[in-house]
C-alpha cells in the first residue's frame, strides 16, 4: 500500500518545480538569455533526460527481461516509423503481453 502522505507531498513538490520555470520568465525576466551555450544546453536537456530515463531501465520494466527486450525493439521500430506516442506505447505493451504468454 502506498504511503499517501509521502506521495501527496511529492506531487506538490513536482507541481511547484513544474510551475516555477513556466512562470518565472513571464513574471520577472523581460530580456532573453544571451549565451548560446546556455540556450543550447536548455534545448538539449529534454533529450538527454529522456534517454537516461529510458535506458537501461526499460529492460527491467516488466517481470521478465526477454519480454522487455521484445517490447523495446517494437517500441524502437514504431518510433523510428514516427508513429504517435500512443501507438508506440500500446505496441510495446501488447508485445510484452503476448511474448509473456508464449515464454
Amino acid at each position, binding site marked *: 500500500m502506498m504511503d499517501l502522505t509521502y506521495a501527496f507531498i511529492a506531487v506538490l513538490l513536482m507541481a511547484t518545480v513544474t510551475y516555477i520555470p513556466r512562470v518565472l520568465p513571464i513574471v520577472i525576466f523581460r530580456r532573453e538569455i544571451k549565451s548560446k551555450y546556455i540556450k543550447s544546453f536548455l534545448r538539449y536537456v529534454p533529450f538527454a533526460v529522456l534517454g537516461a530515463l529510458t535506458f537501461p531501465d526499460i529492460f527491467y520494466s516488466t517481470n521478465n527481461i526477454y519480454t522487455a527486450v521484445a517490447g523495446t525493439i517494437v*517500441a524502437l521500430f514504431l518510433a523510428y516509423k514516427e508513429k504517435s506516442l500512443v501507438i508506440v506505447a500500446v505496441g510495446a505493451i501488447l508485445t*510484452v503481453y503476448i511474448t*509473456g504468454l508464449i515464454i
Partner: protein
Amino acid sequence: MKKAGINEFRYGLKRGLPIALGYVPVSFTFGLIAVSGGIPVWMAIFISLSNLTSAGQFAGTNLIISGAGYFEITLTTFIINIRYMLMSLSLSQRLNKEMNLPKRLLIGYGVTDEIFSVASMEKGRLNFPYFIGLIIGPVIGWTTGTALGAVISTALPDSLSGAMGIALYGMFIAIVLPEAKKSKPITLIVAISVLAVCLLRYVPVFKMVSSGFRVIIATVIGAGIGAVLFPIKDDTVSDEVKVEASAPPKETEKEKI
C-alpha cells in the same frame, strides 16, 4: 472592450481544441500507468491537474512509485521542466501591456509545449482572454483523459497491467527517436547520456549514487557536452527553437504536452 474580450476568449478556445483532443490518449495512458503502479485514482487526476505536463509528471510519478526521496523527485522533475523557461521567456516578449502580475501568474500555469506552439504562431501581442481560452480546453482534456485511464486501469486483469510497465518508456522513445533521426547532435547527446547512466549504474565505484541522481548527472553530462560541441548559432537559436516548437502540431508532436 468586454465584447472584444469574449471574442478573444472564444478564439482561444477554438485554437485550444485540437490540443485538448491530442492530450486525451496520452493522459489516458498516464492514468493507466499511474494507477497500475499503485497511485490512487484521485491522486492520478490531481497529478495531471497540478502538473499539466508529460515527461516531468511521468518521471516524477515513476519515482514516487519506486519510493524515491523528495529531493530526487523534485530535482529530476525540475531538470526535465527547465525547458519551459525558454518558452516562457519567448512568450514574455509577446504579452500585451494589460498583463498584470496575477494574469501572468495564471498564464504561467498553462505553458505546455503545444500551448506555447500555438500561442507563438499568433500574430501581434497576446492578450489575457485569448490565453485563458487557449489553456482551458487542454487542461480539461489532460485531466479527463487521466481520469478515464485511471478508472479503467482498476478493471484491467493483472497480466495486462504487468505489461503496462513498459508503456512509459515506450512513450519516451516515441518522443526522442523522431528528433534523433533528424539531428546528429541529438543522437550523440542521447547516446552520451545513456552511456553515462549505464556507467553510473553498473560500475561498482558508483554504487552509492541513487537512481534519480544517476539520471540528473547523466543529463548534465549529455546536454553539457552537446552544448559545447554543438552550440546552436546565436541568431538561429530563436528561429530554430521556434520552428521546432511552433510547427503546427503534427501527429507526433500534438501528443507531447
